[in-house]
């Protein structure tokens, strides 16, 4: 069986070799890089532009951005027909290809985020490492001691001057990271936008649309996880304060949470409107110019894919959350529903680009329909199916859980 044949339904005149070759993992790839880039931009709003109210969410966003990075790489590897040869992209990069620079852009970005994290948490590493220097340590303490001492890279200086240098380095890296984060994602847009054979993909707006939607999804994702973590902390503080017969801890957390959410939501709404505006501009432009491919595009967008495009992406994924955010006196619960819907909307946008772009034939007289494999019956249907996508989505959470043990995001060190 031809790879792709398994989940492609063909209708009318489709060329013999046409299948949906780019499936769910290629939907996941821009979705995940979007979250990475967006989370980084959010953290930089504080580090570079000094937007103080974002301070709490900034550190959180940066650590999450780091945890999400491998999540952007895994779907690409899973999708390759010969994954063990993935390294060839670094061995003989063919630079006329938009994909060839991926390894370089990705590792540059990885190094920037890693170094920024190091400068922010260096003081914490030093403190931990010094605290653990004591006789009679348990095995756990000994392992922690090795980890933290290694992470200091031998830089134990925590004088005022050294910490100021850290802060300056953080600021420079955060500023440098913005264009690279945006490039990483705009570049994913370029990969699609430059395919001239595909009538839906080919538009110079594609990288711009990708960047803006990346920022939207990144902010939404950070808000959602932030709310979840804060709720969990409230629950824990509530239990503790009940034991101590006081309500202080719990209300303090709740107050801080609403403030952060309301301010972040303003940025989210701004970027969401921009993203929708750009996508509508693209659609209006295509309709107005109505070149040869318009008939088949229109029948796909307004007909066969109507539910995915207008109901799921624009309706439930964009308009409903926009209304939710614009109603005054935003509550945490409403914000949680809103950001979850925004994330869903952005996922559907990736879906409509990747799958939608392959939903019509090169003949402009036939259609292809993607049937997402749900129950995995083979490795192929696992990785290119619902379970593969869910695994890719859950992987960063596992990494985040481990990372937070080293870089705590809620009892933050003063520096940075």
């Amino acid at each position, binding site marked *: 069986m031809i790879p792709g044949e398994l989940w492609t339904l063909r209708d*009318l005149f489709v060329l013999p070799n046409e299948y949906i070759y780019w499936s769910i993992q290629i939907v996941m790839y821009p979705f995940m890089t979007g979250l990475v880039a967006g989370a980084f931009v959010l953290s930089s709003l504080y580090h570079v532009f000094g937007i103080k109210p974002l301070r709490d969410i900034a550190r959180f966003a940066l650590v999450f951005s780091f945890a999400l990075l491998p999540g952007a790489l895994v779907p690409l590897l899973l999708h390759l027909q010969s994954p063990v*040869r993935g390294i060839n992209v670094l061995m003989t990069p063919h630079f006329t290809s938009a994909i060839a620079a991926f390894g370089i852009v990705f590792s540059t970005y990885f190094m920037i985020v890693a170094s920024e994290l190091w400068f922010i948490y260096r003081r914490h590493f030093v403190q931990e490492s010094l605290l653990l220097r004591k006789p009679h340590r348990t095995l756990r303490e000994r392992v922690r001691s090795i980890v933290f001492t290694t992470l200091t890279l031998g830089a134990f200086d925590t004088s005022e001057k050294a910490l100021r240098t850290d802060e300056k380095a953080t600021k420079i890296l955060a500023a440098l990271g913005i264009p690279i984060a945006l490039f990483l994602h705009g570049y994913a847009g370029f990969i699609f936008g430059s395919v*001239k*054979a595909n009538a839906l993909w080919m538009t110079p707006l594609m990288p711009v649309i990708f960047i803006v939607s990346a920022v939207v999804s990144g902010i939404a994702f950070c808000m959602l996880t932030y709310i979840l973590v804060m709720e969990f902390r409230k629950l824990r503080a509530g239990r503790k304060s009940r034991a101590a017969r006081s309500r202080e801890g719990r209300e303090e957390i709740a107050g801080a949470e609403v403030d952060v959410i309301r301010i972040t939501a303003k940025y989210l709404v701004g970027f969401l409107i921009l993203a929708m505006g750009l996508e509508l501009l693209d659609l209006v432009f295509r309709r107005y110019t109505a070149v040869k491919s318009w008939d088949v595009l229109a029948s796909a967008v307004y007909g066969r894919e109507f539910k995915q495009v207008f109901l799921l992406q624009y309706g439930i994924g964009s308009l409903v959350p926009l209304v939710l955010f614009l109603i005054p006196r935003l509550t945490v619960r409403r914000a949680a529903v809103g950001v979850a819907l925004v994330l869903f909307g952005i996922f559907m946008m990736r879906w409509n680009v990747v799958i939608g772009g392959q939903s019509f034939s090169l003949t402009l*007289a036939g259609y292809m329909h993607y049937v997402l494999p749900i129950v995995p019956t083979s490795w192929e249907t696992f990785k290119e199916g619902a379970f593969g996508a869910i695994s890719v989505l859950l992987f960063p959470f596992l990494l985040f859980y481990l990372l937070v043990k080293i870089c705590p995001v809620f009892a933050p060190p003063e520096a940075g």
Partner: protein
Amino acid sequence: MMTRREFLKKSALVAGGVLIPVSALEILGPERLQAIKADKAVRWVFLVDTERCVGCGFCVKACKLENEVPYEANASRTWVERYVLTKDGAFHADSPKGGRDGYTTPDIDQNESSMLTIDPATIDKAYFVPKLCNQCDNPPCVQVCPVGATYKTPDGVVLVDRKWCIGCGYCIMACPYGARFFHPTYHTAEKCTFCYHRISAGLPSACVQACPFGARQIGNMKDPDDPVTRAISTERVTVLKSEFGTKPQVYYVGLDWEVR
């Protein structure tokens, strides 16, 4: 005891020292290797005379057998399309199994929309169009390959190195002609090579040899006396989808405007 500064200095020195001899090594891409072997006095081109094609599918059969593309696989390096235009202005086309088994029934295979029976009395015109890789002069598939596993030989044929292709599918997406697919057993990008192994040895491509009506011909564009070159330069021929700027090198005689 070594200080950190000293350690970093020495590490940089060692890394630099190792890099100098290593930088003398070069990974030769498949394109470089091919450039050493190929004949530069040749530019392979193809001529398809659609007026002569009867849709027997012999070319598709021959191609599959010659080129290790599994016979039952629903993909093919070359294929034949059937076009039927009816009096009501409608256009129907199909290519079941790439036309491998010949067009023996007048019904149009519409895939999910099942078979469509057309009353012969309503037909204005109908014809067959053989298709294969256009071996473009400006191949988008070569441009987008991230590892250089697909390349154009100096004699104009686009090849895929099965040992180097990572199977990302970008080339498949980039081809406006749908000429590429994933090989079901090698799991690498697969395409028509004009039967490079045959033409390089002085034999005609398998499909050219199998065509009983001479609808398919291969020639050398750099040889003015080649009958294919003469036909292309003196007759009215056209290419497919020139608007993509790919400069395709498969020329067609008798191509209708409805052909996709």
